[in-house]
């Protein structure tokens, strides 16, 4: 019995070792990709922050509601741009984002534009209407893809298909912390900081040549900018999440192997002791 048990333990150790090799390799790959992705994310972060700050300033000061982009939401349909990963095995990266999106969009009539294969799968599973699946692969999205997305969203928005546009992405806070976030994109009034409704006289803004032309020109630009920088942040977050997940998987495998080794050695010792006892017992007989 002991021998069969030992064999099973030995096999189990082998299989855990194989798994560990894979998780270790994935961890290393994610770590080296992460370095590049983090650089890209760091580069776009100031753009995203400044863009948001500028748009909030303009929204707070804006008194013009001529342009379709500045009109308060005219209908209660929401478009969600959801940026998730292409692959799993990244800890809670995808699940956290989807949970966050569900909480965000509860009770709203939503359509989604998924970026990332996991997002497509999830939205299909939830039977949420999808605007387009053209940009399913988040890893290969370029600046010009972002402009295409922005143009598409603007066209749909101007047709009145949606009253609001939001985007859910994962913010890269640090190597160890990635937080899902949502940002309003259209209309511009959604940018107004909620806790600080303008009181008293507003600062008037001069638009040249006129507000409608300006907003029509900048809305697709800033949408593309927002999408691009959020994609970069999300990709870095995904890799960081995967690295952390694979690191802990490797650690767990190591622990498991050492436990199993201990168990195996005990079993081996026990079987030897038993054999010796048997031999001694046999020898004592006259």
């Amino acid at each position: 019995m002991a021998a069969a048990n030992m064999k099973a333990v030995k096999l189990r150790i082998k299989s855990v070792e194989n798994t560990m090799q894979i998780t270790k390799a994935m961890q290393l790959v994610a770590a080296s990709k992460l370095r590049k992705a983090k650089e890209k994310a760091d580069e776009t972060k100031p753009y995203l922050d400044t863009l948001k700050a500028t748009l909030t300033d303009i929204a707070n000061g804006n008194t013009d509601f001529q342009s379709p982009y500045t009109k308060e939401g005219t209908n209660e349909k929401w478009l969600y741009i959801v940026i998730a990963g292409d692959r799993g095995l990244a800890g809670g990266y995808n699940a956290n984002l989807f949970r966050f999106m569900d909480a965000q969009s509860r009770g709203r009539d939503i359509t989604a534009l998924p970026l990332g294969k996991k997002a497509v799968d999830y939205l299909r599973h939830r039977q949420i209407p999808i605007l387009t699946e053209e940009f399913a692969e988040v890893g290969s999205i370029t600046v010009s893809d972002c402009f295409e997305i922005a143009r598409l969203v603007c066209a749909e928005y101007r047709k009145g298909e949606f009253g609001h546009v939001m985007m859910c992405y994962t913010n890269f806070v640090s190597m160890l912390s990635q937080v899902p976030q949502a940002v309003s994109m259209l209309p511009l009034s959604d940018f107004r900081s909620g806790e600080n409704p303008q009181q008293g006289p507003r600062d008037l803004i001069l638009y040249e040549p006129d507000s409608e032309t300006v907003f029509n020109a900048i809305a697709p630009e800033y949408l593309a900018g927002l999408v691009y920088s959020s994609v970069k942040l999300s990709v870095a977050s995904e890799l960081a999440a995967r690295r952390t997940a694979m690191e802990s998987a490797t650690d767990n495998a190591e622990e498991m192997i050492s436990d199993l080794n201990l168990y195996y050695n005990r079993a081996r010792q026990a079987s030897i002791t038993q054999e010796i006892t048997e031999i001694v017992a046999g020898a004592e007989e006259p």
Partner: protein
Amino acid sequence: MSAYELQVVSVDGLEFDGEVQRVTLRTIDGDVAILARHTNYCTAVGMGTAKVILPDNTERRAACIGGMISVMNGKCRILPTTWEWSSEIDVERAERARDRAKEKLADATLSREARAHAQAKLYRALVRLQSAGK
């Protein structure tokens, strides 16, 4: 002349952050120059050479294409789609792009979309070359 704060941020990162005397660039409505104490202002950026005059009167040029410029409460922010300082422009590449675009435009059978595409490429190359040449 008094200076004011200017920030230039493109998707490739923070290009400029500091005090300037004046910035001149081409918007969709023509060239504008922003000086200190400008009123709150917002417009979309066209294609052209942007000139930044630093407090010590030195001038820096850049190819600035697309995006927006805003002045809010004395602070100016430019958020261009592309912003390349004249020293960073690859002149040879721009020349190649210009020649390629010209070749394409010479083809009369080009579809309207392709023509617009080539035209845009040509303009971008010309703006780069103009910004790089002193």
